[in-house]
């Protein structure tokens, strides 16, 4: 009997709940820890960004319209699915050079982070909303509401934990998003899309692209139907300025939060949720 030939996985993108290849048909090579070619990843184009934004916008109404309880359940469900497939992600991280212990710690932290934000889903409104004691005969209250579509650059050096840490606070608050995965280590992100797919997250709520940051920077930051841009890696001043400038076109909120230690508590906070919320104040007269 000859040795069995392993079936290799084609790493695709995740747009609107489907797994299409990039429309550009281009690829780039992803290497393992020893510098050997591991796989071909999609080198996404401007068109992929646009398609993903359309899907994210379409998904917004449904996702935002769900109850906070339901969104919390779905985040918890993602954690459940990830827990079941822990071994796969540990393997995948090992191929890009993680030691087993570190890979396990990263996957565990990723699961815990999902649980952390799942728990916030029906609480941050109470903590950050208010009923305002106005001086006139009115009743009014202020509530956080999601901004809409958020484009995200996932952290470069933390392929799984980094991605989950930036995705969870954005979607738990009712936003939808388009994420560009780590350029160097995109494979866990694509595998994570499969977890999302099997965990009741409606198509379009999270869209994951792979490709070159420099190529997609302009398209991700200038899109007029995107409400915010989120990134956490330290980058050079010139590029940061460019991102900020692009944000002026439609007054995108740019949230740049450098994080040094993704395992630490500084990497999880309800303030990451409110960073992508607007405050709405609703008034009504009181009387007969």
């Amino acid at each position: 009997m000859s040795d069995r030939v392993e079936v290799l996985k084609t790493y695709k993108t995740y747009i609107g709940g489907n797994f299409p290849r990039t429309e550009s048909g281009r690829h780039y090579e992803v290497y393992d820890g020893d510098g050997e070619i591991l796989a071909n990843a999609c080198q996404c184009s401007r068109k992929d960004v646009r398609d993903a934004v359309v899907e994210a916008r379409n998904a917004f109404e449904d996702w935002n319209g769900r109850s906070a309880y339901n969104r919390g359940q779905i985040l918890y469900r993602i954690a459940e699915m990830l827990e079941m497939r822990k071994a796969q992600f540990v393997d995948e991280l090992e191929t890009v050079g993680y030691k087993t212990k570190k890979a396990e710690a990263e996957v565990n932290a990723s699961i815990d982070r999902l649980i952390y934000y799942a728990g916030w889903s029906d609480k941050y409104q109470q903590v950050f909303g208010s009923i305002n004691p106005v001086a006139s005969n009115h009743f009014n209250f202020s509530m956080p509401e999601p901004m809409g579509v958020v484009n995200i650059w996932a952290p470069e050096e933390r392929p799984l934990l980094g991605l989950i840490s930036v995705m969870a606070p954005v979607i738990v608050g009712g936003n939808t998003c388009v994420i560009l995965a780590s350029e160097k280590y995109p494979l866990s992100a694509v595998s994570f899309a499969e977890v999302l797919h099997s965990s009741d997250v409606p198509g379009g709520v999270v869209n994951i692209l792979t490709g070159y940051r420099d190529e997609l920077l302009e398209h991700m930051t200038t899109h007029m139907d995107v409400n915010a841009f989120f990134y956490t890696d330290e980058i050079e001043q010139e590029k940061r300025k460019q991102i900020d400038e692009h944000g002026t076109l439609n007054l995108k909120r740019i949230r740049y939060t450098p994080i040094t230690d993704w395992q630490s508590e500084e990497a999880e906070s309800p303030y990451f949720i409110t960073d992508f919320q607007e405050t709405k104040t609703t008034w009504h007269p009181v009387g007969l």
Partner: protein
Amino acid sequence: MDDEKQTADAETVEKGFKPSSPNSKLDFNGFWEYDDAPQSTDSVDIEEQYNLFIDGEFVSPTKGRYFESINPATEQSLTSFAEATKQDVDNAVEAARKAFEGSWSTISAKERGKYIFRLARLIKERAREFAILESMDGGKPIRESRDVDVPLAAAHFFYYAGWADKLEYAFPARKAEPLGVAGQIIPWNFPLLMLAWKIAPALATGNTVVLKPAESTSLTALKFAELCRDAGLPDGVVNIVTGAGQTGSQIVNHDDIDKIAFTGSTKVGKIIKKSLAGTDTKYTLELGGKGPNIIFEDAPIDQAVEGIINAIFFNQGHVCCAGSRLFVQEGIADEVIQKLRDRMETLIVGDPLDKNTDIGAINSEQQYNKINEYLEVGVNEGADMYQNSCELPEKGYYCRPTLFTNVSQSNKIVQEEIFGPVLTIQTFRTVEEGIEKANNTPYGLAGGVWTDKGSKIFNVSSNIRNGIVWANTYNKFDPTSPFGGYKESGEGREGGLHGLYPYVKLK
């Protein structure tokens, strides 16, 4: 008993009850006449020229240049203000920095709060003076400056004063520290009120400020500088520099400013955001709007009509959150439009200092021309224009309240912010269509919804993408309530505890 009652009834009849006109039109002419009710200006002094307020002193501008300020109701020169140069802005920022590092950050939060309470009280004590000056300088009716601007400005200081020593309760699990020096640029539509919105939370959180009022309405800011002195506020904590866009841009681009707060147009807001690109300077932007006001068939129509009038004609329509796009459900459109026209006929346009005046003067010649251009655009776009028939004063910049019907979503007058007493009216059939049309704009500041059905209010108000929703009311403000926009209407909130965030770093 019965006899008595009958007698009473008979007497009532004998009094000569005058029936209202057959079509229920508000017949003001037949019943009441208004006498002039001018507000005396005896109690105010306006100097010939005003200097800059830097480090607790009124100082001449380094280049010695002054610009004239016009009373828009008379087109006469009111006074002149100093034009702050780069050097003056530098001096002001330096004074603010010194004050921040010196006295202001060392005194206890409780004492800091007491200074702000003093400012609130001083505004109230001199309320009449402030109201008159506000109306003379900016053209707004005395009724509004007296009953809205000045009391709300005082209330803002009072509200934020109390926060100064309670910041640990505002930010869960975080410690709040002041940012440092805040540069603040305010518009001409609510000069004193916007000053209060900016300065009160900045001081409460321990920052010092350099504020630039709008060039056409700087008067009450300089009067406020007097209050800072009277309150014994440490020198340099509040600095006021006057000037136009150039001075504003020197504030925005100053290296030693930690935060910019701006209220004004979306266009300028984008320029400011761009200037701050790549820096760590924090900013809040309160920008333009094109507020939707949605009236459903089951709305209390007469109240809604009053609400629509207040939404668009308050402060001559110089309001970023004005309800300038009216959406009426089809079945009541004719009735609402007819009632609106009738009500508009009763509006008194004229001298801002007359207590009867509903609509005062347009703030400046420039704005007056801009509004007139939009009226022309509207007519050229094929819309039907209706204006009330009142007489306008011969001198001064006055604009009749105006309605446009027969407009479509793509019309310029429907899409662009006019900042004047100009309302566009469209109809809709279903709730979904109303929401869809209301949201079809890059702006997202404020909007209104009118219906008797509570569940519909919650449905519509939660689906309008605006920072403020007024249900069965409009243009209500309160210091405890966060204000600010979604989308291109800005970033950040002012008012309420949410208004503290932009002035602190959280540790």
